């Protein structure tokens, strides 16, 4: 079953002067449980694609169908609510609310969704454990390392059980060990919770761990391959 389906999605900047095709007729399907990397050189349209799929940015043409409805047709409060209910986000940096502790950051979306207290607290605990930060529950983001902050961001994105999680270069600001560690956690949650992950990256070691790799160039999909991660790892 397709979770996301993009049809001829284009995004054109400066259409009147020197048009820039950030996305050029992108047609992609994403299925439940995928663990997919979007790769490509800088400026190839990775961020734009994730933003359009996530309803953070609009497209110039095409449609983005999520569960049969076109999110490009949603606007204002409806779109914000759609993001809140169905999509988890992890950004490259500044993900967390600085005045809230790790635990409170993870709880945040569930609070916005009005989860009952008990359920919310159990889930928060579960997520803190899943990302290995049980002992950092009360720490503020400024007291956490970059890797720990990103783990909290992943925990927050997943806590409310969205349909899929979008992550734009989640490891870009991390050293390789923290990056590996974050990937481990993402993979584990992908398997355990059966949540679709779509993330963009530069990092070859991260690319290797993805089961599907989509390559963009100048806003076009130039390759889309499934790879056997176990084999890829074994070859190392």
């Amino acid at each position, binding site marked *: 079953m397709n979770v996301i389906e993009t049809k001829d999605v284009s995004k054109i900047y400066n259409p009147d002067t020197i048009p820039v095709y950030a996305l050029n007729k992108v047609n992609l399907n994403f299925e439940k449980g995928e663990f997919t990397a979007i790769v490509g050189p800088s400026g190839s349209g990775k961020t734009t694609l994730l933003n359009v799929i996530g309803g953070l940015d609009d497209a110039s043409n095409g449609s983005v169908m999520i569960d049969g409805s076109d999110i490009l047709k949603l606007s204002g409060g409806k779109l914000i609510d759609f993001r809140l209910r169905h999509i988890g986000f992890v950004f490259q940096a500044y993900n967390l*609310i600085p005045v809230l502790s790790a635990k409170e950051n993870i709880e945040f979306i569930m609070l916005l969704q009005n989860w009952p207290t008990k359920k919310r607290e159990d889930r928060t605990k579960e997520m803190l454990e899943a990302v290995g930060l049980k002992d950092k529950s009360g720490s503020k983001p400024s007291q956490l390392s970059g890797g720990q902050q990103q783990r909290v961001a992943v925990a927050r994105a997943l806590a409310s059980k969205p349909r899929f999680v979008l992550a734009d270069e989640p490891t870009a600001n991390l050293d390789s060990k923290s990056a590996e560690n974050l990937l481990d956690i993402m993979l584990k949650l992908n398997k355990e919770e059966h949540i679709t992950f779509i993330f963009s990256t530069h990092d070859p070691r991260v690319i290797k761990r993805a089961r599907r790799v989509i390559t963009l160039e100048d806003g076009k999909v130039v390759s889309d391959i499934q790879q056997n991660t176990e084999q890829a790892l074994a070859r190392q």
Partner: protein
Amino acid sequence: MIIKLSWRNLWRNRRRTLITVASIVFAIILANIMDSLLLGLNKQMVDSLVGVYSGHFQIQQEGYWEDKSLHNSFVPNDSLETALEGTEGIKGFSYRLESVALAATNKMTKGTLVMGIDPDKEKNITGFDKKIIQGNYLGETNNQALVGKGLAEKMNISVGDSLVLVGEGYHGASAADKYEVSGIIRLGSPDLDNNIVILKLEDAQFLYGAYDRVTSIPVFLRPNQPQEQAIANLKPNLNTDFIVKPWQEMLPMLTQSIGLIDALRVIIVVLLYVLISFSILGTIIMMAHERMTELRILLSIGMRKKVMQLMVLIETFFMALFGAVLGFLASYPIVNYFKVNPIQFRGKVADGWESFGIDPIMPTTVDFGVFTKHTLIILVISILLSIYAIHQISSLKPVASKK
């Protein structure tokens, strides 16, 4: 949760928040002091002229105000007294016969204002007896006089001296008599103190041949009693020969000064508000701008704009409330200090004030209504100013457009 977020956001930049709070506190204290001082000044002016001399209003014979001669005096009757006694809000009233006379000692002659009073009544209402600075108040014996402080100095009169008053009596009869100065009085209004000679009412009536007659009945109200209401209550019970003259008409200079001071008060306070608005606005602008990235992320992950707007509104409100409450509390002891220790003017300034008929001191009033007013205004201003941040949020997009 929003309140918790707002509260914590406020303390992110502790120093800036404290500076803003401090400037609010400072502005409120200043506004309260200015307001209380100037209100105090007004009250002081009214008290020293109205409370002692004119009364809040006077009952006069129709025509007396235009022609202040003894021809327009009258004999107060019982029904008038009953009407006055039956009116709510009236603290008291007294009978006075006022006219002019030449006062002569063996060295000097000078035009004076003669006022016949009921010593016992004035004791209770205007407290003339407490304003004696030398000698004694009027007693049982006849032909005693009180002389205003300034007049006594000018004519070099002291207690025990004799004084001759010469004037024109009722119906053109000649009036002259001799008095013993029993005391020197200081009423607080230099205008009066430089000109007045006070006699017992019956002595004045005898001097002018105006038996049983008075020129005015000054009426004094209880504190905080609205003047209009008392007049309205009294009027229906009053004979049409009489008119009610409010002090505002009898003392037009005072009315004008009060209007002027009120205008000054408004200008100063508005100026303070403008200053404080800039301080609050600066903080709001900085708070909004340094948090744009964070607010975008909140928007991306699904926080509604309305909720974010509420959050920044609460932040501003907290800050203003904090400053306003502190300002309110801090104002009380300061304003009260100036009430107990009024600012005293000296030298030229003092002379200037005295020439207007006002004591050269400036006590404050301690009026919680004034405090509350400024506190509320600051709160309203800060809410209005947070419209800036609210507007910024309403045009916020989840993705920062890069250039």
